[in-house]
Structures are given as C-alpha cells and as structure tokens.
C-alpha cells in the first residue's frame, strides 16, 4: 500500500546511489521529492565489490569527506596474475588517494539520509511495479495497483530493469550485457588486516586478481580491506559463464578463499555476510535508446553506467553523478515549465559533457578485450611461468627473452602475444 498523500514534483524509483543523489540535489533546490525504495532501509538491497571513487561524490555532497561512512582510503593498489599458488603482482602505493572502501549498504543509507535531511521523503518497503502514463507521457508510478503521480519520474531501479522492460524502453536483459558478482564479507581483527596487508591505520588495499581464480570463467577476483572486515569476491561475465561453467559459483569462490595465499591471509576470519549482484558490463551498448522520454529520466545501473577497466571498476560514482545530472536537468526543465522529452534532452548533453559518457566511450573497446579467455587463462599462465623461470634460480638462469620463448611454446606466438598486449595497452 502506498500511504502517501499529496502531489510531488518528482518520484524517484530506488534509493541507491543514483536515486538518492538525484533526490538530494532536487530537494536542496526546493523540489518536492519522494523516493520509493523496495528494501526495508535504503541500502539494504545494494551490493557491490567494495571501492568508490571520491571526487564526483564530493561535488554532489559538499560534506562528503567529513560525514560519509568511509572505511579506508585506498593507498595500496594491487593487480595480480595467479596460477596455482603462484602470483605475479604489480603494486602501486601512494600516500595520496582518490578512492575509498565502504559498505555500499551504509553509503547508500547515508545518501538517502542526506536526501531526507534536505527535505525528500523516503518511502521504504514499497516495490514499484510500473510507470503510470497519460497519453504516453510518464506521469508517475504504480505500486500494487496504487498510483502516485508526479511531474517527472527518475528511474534508478538498478541493473534489473523490470520497469523499463515492461514499458518496452529496453529489451530484456541479456547475459552478455552483465556480469555476476559474488562476495564474502569476512570479519578480521583490525590489527591483523593492517599487518597482513602492510597498511597503516585507515589505509586500504584494493586488489584485483586474474588467472585461475574464477574456475576457468572469464572474469576476475577482488579483495578490498575495510576497517574490520575484508571483502573477497569474484566477477564472471555471464554469457561466457553460461557456456563454460562446470562448478557452482559459490564453490569457485570457496576454492579461492581456501587456497594459498588467501587461506593464510584470511586465517581466523569469520564470515559475516555472503551476497551476489549483477553488474552492467555493456556500458553504452546497453543504455536505453533514449535516456529520457516524456516525463522520465534513467540513471545509474539502469542506464548501464558502469565502467570495468579490468584493473578497477567504477560504478557508484557514475551512478551518483548521473542522478545529480538528472536533477540538474529537472531543475532546468522546471524553469521552462515543461517535462517533455525535448525539455529533458539536456540530460543527454550534460552526460556527454561529463566524465560519464566520455569515459564509457573511451573505454568501449576494453569490454571486448576483457572477454577473451586468453587474457584470463593463457596469458597469466605465460607470465607466471616466465616469472618462475626468472626468479626461481638454482644454478643457471635464463634471459628474459629465453624465458618468454619457452613459456609461450604451444600456447601462442611471440608476435601474437605482443600484438595482443599492445592492443590492450592502447585500449586502456
């Protein structure tokens, strides 16, 4: 039941980072906003890997750095290729940091609270079933048969775009457009986290791992350190997983957790939560044909705004910033006195001028490269093999070139390896 009285300027579907950032910005500018959230609390249905890039959020929320529920600032970036118990690792350490670890449940909760403080009404426990339209123009939402009217709707429903699908605004989601993420949150003593990962208090680690960590499925594993927990998870591209999966995805993750070096690093850890979520992987190729129609704007995961670079992922800042731009669009359209598609089209323009579409365009090529199974199996095998030959010296040691020549035997040619590496470097 929707026990909401009155007329609203804006209805926002979903109190995730995108929805709440839209609601916060609109409320701050005097709009009457209601956010409809299906979870018991804002954030209770949100799940992600574990790291957020800060700058865009600081622009939306001036008090962000002081108030937000930040766990640790990421000062240690680690990228590993892992084969068996052998790891070849690239690590970057800096005292400066532009990203932090956080629990998305709490961060989304904080954003919703900011929206509420600014005047928005957050209604939880209510699932939105459909858009309400009059003469093809979106004029509100429908929940359990009840209609809630508004001048404009912001769709922040997330990656499973049931509402957009029902309305024929996007085709049914396909396995090739998404990846499946699974995550274990493991409680570990604060001191142990800092000792085992070489961190000072409040410093964090973000770690990506490719190789034989995902049961032969294209994808990768990740580990993030929070204050008193570690998030260990993996992401697998769903289309490839459909074809190749041999083992249950949870068991693949358990294989990783209980194998060296993770079994030692996570010793004495206590599992406190296990979750899963889909993540958009097709970026602009899965965006709705139009990100706006008469009375409707689409933001966040629902719009496909997520960037997977292979060594890091940006989702929360993209989502929040798209919500912020949707709010700016609505403010402008209101000044023109109309919420027709032509008035809302400035949203597209704002997105294109912002980092969101520029980043997604620039990295479009990566999506394809990231799916090649060579990248996830053959190349880690080759590189780890080369490293072993170079570093495990007994009497004589080979040259680097000799090692590479030996390691690629039967797997690929030197030329093809170089070409592939160059194309990867160019795409990045």
């Amino acid at each position: 039941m929707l026990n909401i009285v009155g007329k609203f300027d804006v209805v926002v579907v979903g109190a995730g980072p995108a929805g709440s950032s839209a609601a916060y910005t609109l409320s701050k500018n005097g709009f009457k906003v209601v956010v409809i959230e299906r979870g018991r609390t804002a954030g209770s249905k949100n799940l992600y890997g574990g790291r957020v890039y800060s700058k865009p959020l600081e622009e939306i929320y001036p008090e962000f750095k002081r108030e937000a529920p930040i766990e640790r600032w990421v000062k240690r970036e680690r990228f590993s290729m892992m084969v068996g118990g052998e790891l070849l690792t690239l690590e970057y350490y800096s005292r400066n940091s532009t990203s932090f670890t956080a629990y998305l449940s709490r961060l989304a909760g904080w954003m919703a609270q900011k929206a509420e403080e600014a005047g928005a009404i957050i209604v939880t426990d209510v699932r939105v079933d459909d858009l309400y339209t009059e003469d093809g123009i979106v004029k509100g939402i429908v929940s359990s048969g009840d209609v809630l009217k508004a001048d404009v709707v912001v769709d922040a429903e997330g990656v499973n775009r049931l509402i957009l699908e029902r309305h024929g605004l996007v085709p049914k989601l396909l396995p090739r457009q998404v990846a499946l993420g699974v995550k274990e949150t493991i409680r570990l003593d604060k001191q142990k986290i800092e000792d085992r990962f070489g961190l000072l208090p409040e410093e964090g680690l973000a770690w990506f791992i490719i190789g034989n960590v995902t049961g032969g499925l294209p994808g990768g594993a990740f580990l993030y350190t929070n204050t008193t927990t570690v998030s260990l998870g993996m992401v697998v591209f769903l289309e490839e997983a459909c074809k190749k999966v041999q083992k249950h995805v949870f068991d693949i993750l358990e294989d990783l957790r209980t194998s060296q070096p993770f079994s030692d690093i996570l010793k004495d850890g206590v599992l406190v939560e296990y979750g899963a979520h889909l993540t958009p992987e097709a970026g602009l190729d899965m965006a709705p044909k139009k990100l706006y129609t008469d009375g409707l704007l689409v933001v966040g995961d629902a719009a496909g705004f997520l960037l997977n670079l292979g060594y890091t992922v940006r989702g929360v800042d993209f989502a929040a910033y798209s919500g912020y731009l949707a709010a700016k669009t609505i403010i402008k359209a209101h000044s023109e006195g109309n919420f027709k598609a032509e008035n809302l089209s400035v949203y597209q323009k704002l997105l294109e001028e912002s980092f969101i579409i520029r980043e997604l365009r620039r990295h479009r090529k990566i999506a394809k490269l990231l799916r090649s199974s060579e990248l996830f199996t053959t190349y880690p095998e080759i590189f780890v093999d080369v490293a072993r030959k170079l570093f495990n010296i007994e009497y004589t040691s080979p040259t680097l070139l000799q090692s590479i020549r030996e390691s690629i035997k039967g797997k690929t040619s030197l030329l093809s390896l170089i070409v592939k590496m160059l194309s990867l470097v160019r795409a990045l």
Partner: protein
Amino acid sequence: MSVQALKKIKITEALNTNIWDVDSRPHITVDYEKCRKLCDKKICTLLCPAGCYTLSDDGILFSYEGCLECGTCRIVCPHEAVKWDYPLSGRGVQYRFG
C-alpha cells in the same frame, strides 16, 4: 561460524550468516515442466549464487528462501521458465555489508 584456513564451507552455512526476512509468498516461480521437457544443461543449478536451483531426478527443485535477488536466473534461463520479480514489503535478504 569461523572460516578457518583451508576449510571450505557449504553454501547453506554462508547464507545463514545473512539477515533474512523471508516472505511467505515466493517472489519467483519456476515452470518445472519446461525444465524437465526442454532443458538439458540446467545451468541455473551452477549459476544461481544462492543455490536456489537444485537437480532432482530429471527436473529442477527451486526454493526461493535463500534468494539473493541478483536476477541471474531470470536472464540465464534459455527457456523462459523463470517468472521473476523482487520480493514485496521489504522482504528477502537484508544486506548490512553490501
């Protein structure tokens, strides 16, 4: 429950660490006829991260109680045997560390 080094845990144990408010009505329904008649691979049994789909004789057994609401089954089912929606009234999984 402790996840000691090298000891693997079962998915039910992992799901039990979560906070749940399970609805009495299922939010997902499965057309078992389709599973039995049309599907030989049954990848849902490996890809549903909550293990909601299990093999039974020639068909599928489905239980919605441990559902993590990710939506994987909805899109990987090649026979559209899954009727999928989110739970009502805030029910289902309650993430604290999501």
